[in-house]
């Protein structure tokens, strides 16, 4: 087995900009046939290498082919398009805007690097007291409580079930466990509903199963205040330390 490393593109626009740079193409006059071929070749390469192709690439391929077809249609008066009826215009605008964003994010990255050695105060008194207060007044919960809370949340929030478009990336329970554990490494605790906010139905279920797994294997602990308030998820490390 060997690995092939393809340049990491942030989507089809990023790939198109790569072609434009590489062939030093004038962005205002893109040779659409050539670019479409390059683009399709890249997709074929991905297929051969068995790399999952996200729907955006397929969509872009069809957009390119559509533009190509429009360009081939004989124009009534002139062979050249006026600027605002050029079928490439929308794509060109997008490419320019995206390039501007890329440049801006490079500029911001410089700020980021310059500031990498700046550390702010990590912990405040109010957080300390809040934390110790919580651990005193909050009571530990079991799996049944989790199931109840989950059910309540499910009824309350009615997560959207987007039937039509199914995102290509699939989320495994293990990935979700990793995600939760990563948050717990940084944040000491998570408010339970926050884990699930703005997610689709099947994600909610995966989150629930992941949480079940973590609680069962004692990698996370659940606490709740005496009141009918939110459940908090703590990492086992944190509980051990306190």
């Amino acid at each position: 087995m060997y690995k092939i490393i393809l340049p990491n593109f942030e989507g089809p626009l990023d790939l198109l900009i790569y072609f434009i740079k590489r062939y030093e193409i004038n962005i205002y006059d893109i040779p659409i046939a050539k670019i479409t071929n390059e683009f399709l070749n890249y997709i074929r390469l991905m297929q051969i290498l068995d790399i999952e192709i996200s729907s955006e690439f397929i969509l872009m391929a069809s957009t390119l082919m559509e533009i190509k077809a429009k360009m081939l249609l004989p124009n009534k008066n002139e062979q050249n398009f006026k600027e605002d009826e050029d079928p490439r215009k929308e794509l060109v605008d997008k490419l320019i805007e995206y390039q501007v964003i890329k440049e801006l994010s490079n500029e911001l990255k410089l700020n980021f690097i310059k500031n990498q050695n700046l550390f702010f105060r990590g912990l405040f008194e109010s957080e300390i007291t809040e934390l110790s207060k919580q651990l005193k007044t909050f009571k530990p919960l079991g799996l049944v409580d989790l199931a109840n809370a989950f059910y309540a949340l499910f009824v309350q929030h009615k997560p959207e079930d987007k039937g039509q478009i199914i995102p290509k990336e699939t989320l495994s329970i293990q990935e979700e466990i990793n995600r939760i554990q990563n948050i717990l490494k940084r944040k000491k605790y998570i408010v339970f509903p926050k884990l699930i906010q703005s997610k689709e139905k099947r994600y909610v279920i995966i989150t629930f199963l992941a949480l079940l797994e973590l609680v069962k294997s004692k990698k996370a602990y659940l606490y709740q205040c005496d009141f009918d308030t939110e459940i908090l998820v703590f990492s086992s490390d944190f509980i051990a330390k306190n």
Partner: protein
Amino acid sequence: MMFFYLDYEVQKRIVESLIFASEEPISIVNLTEILTSKIDFSSMNLQSNFQQSPPTNEIDFEKYFKKLIEDINQELRYTLRPYQIIFVAGGYTFATTEEYGKIISLLPSFRYKKRLSRAMLEVLTIIAYNQPITRPEIENIRGTNSAEVINSLLEKNLIKVVGRKNVPGKPHLFATTNDFLKLFGLGSLEELPKYNEIRTLVEERDKQEKIELKIDFNREDLES
């Protein structure tokens, strides 16, 4: 007894402790508001000789507090503290000095704390310049699915939901947070690199590439 009648040394300590204890950068306006409110500092058992001081309405608060904070910083430098008061995200807050920040960033448990992927930077940029903005709008600019990236930015508290857009589906509207400004060392959003300047630059460059292309064509002509 008013704040401004306290010993200057005690005034410095109070401001220093205020900035130290505040979780968010504290602005001059905020400082002024807090310290000119009717509190009787003489009841606080401070070791301070109260001094004659100009009445508040004659004080230029901004100048006064800036000087005071600069004086605190000088003390911190003289006494070799590894942190300083800096201005960021619209206010004053404590942060490590460059020298010791560098050391900390090399220590294993701090090294990976500050990492942003290219995708995260891109989405942050889009939100910073177009806020408030919805996920579909972000994805339209990037040309790619950004749900995961947005989630991790929310988790890192670099962006927040500020409402919903009144269009079908009522999508969330996202905006950047103070933590974003802190991470990039910006006093306010106005300190972001200028959009129009960069846009002109990109457009100019694209035109330049056109010229190069022509030259290339010519060369090909010559060669063939």
